[in-house]
């Protein structure tokens, strides 16, 4: 959890609150250090899921959730990974759409979960066809 990355992220969401960026405020807080905004896990590297090749274009973010045991602390190490937890298809006016469910995890060095997040990614008919033809 790099201080600079947290600051850059806080600035990008227009939330340069001292609890995220001011060292004194962090030290004097109940956490003893600065914390990160709840959507900061967007920044983490969750590795690669073998066989999953999603394009970086043409996907729609449908839903997103975060569940925390506690806030993320600046300076701590977090171990991240993600899983595909489901896939379904629905027919609509735009053709058949795919709904991909991904779950991501962040653990402390002892393996305790700090946060989990879930994403629903909607794959349009056009992109779905392209993926199948590959």
């Amino acid at each position, binding site marked *: 959890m790099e201080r600079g990355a947290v600051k850059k992220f806080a600035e990008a969401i227009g939330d340069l609150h001292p609890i995220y960026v001011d060292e004194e405020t962090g030290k004097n807080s109940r956490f003893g250090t600065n914390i990160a905004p709840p959507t900061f896990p967007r920044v983490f590297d969750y590795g690669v899921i073998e066989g999953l090749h999603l394009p970086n274009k043409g996907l729609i973010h449908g839903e997103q959730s975060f569940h925390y045991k506690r*806030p993320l602390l600046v300076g701590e190490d977090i171990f991240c990974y993600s899983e595909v937890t489901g896939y379904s298809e629905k027919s609509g006016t735009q053709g058949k759409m795919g709904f991909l469910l991904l779950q991501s995890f962040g653990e402390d060095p002892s393996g305790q979960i700090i946060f989990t997040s879930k994403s629903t990614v909607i794959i349009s008919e056009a992109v779905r066809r392209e993926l199948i033809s590959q």
Partner: protein
Amino acid sequence: MKLAELQAGESLESTQLDPVTRLDLIKYAGASGDYNPIHTIDEEAKKAGLPGIIAHGMWTMGNLSKLFTSFYEEGYMEDYLIRFKGMVFLNDSITLKAVLHEKEGNKLHFKVAAVNQDDREVIKGTVVFVQYE
């Protein structure tokens, strides 16, 4: 104000963001690592069938979370769930809202949303804010 004093049905002070600029989205791309070009490059957005570049859904979700930032000494956000309902375009004027739906022990259940200048919800969801004992 303290969250502990808030009653069900009452709202946090809503916040109106400045109109969305390209620089906002370039900054978010850099800070988040999400470089999908539909958020920053007009031609790429048009190729994708959009009238223009759109904000990252996570940019709006990140902005909405700041309604709770000043209450970190009272508790923390245990759950934050968002459904992305509409696109946010350049120059859109977004307002952030949170209303306390229910108190359940030390958990405060909020309904949250971001609406655009036409009062249309662009994202909508729930926050569970846990108060420290």
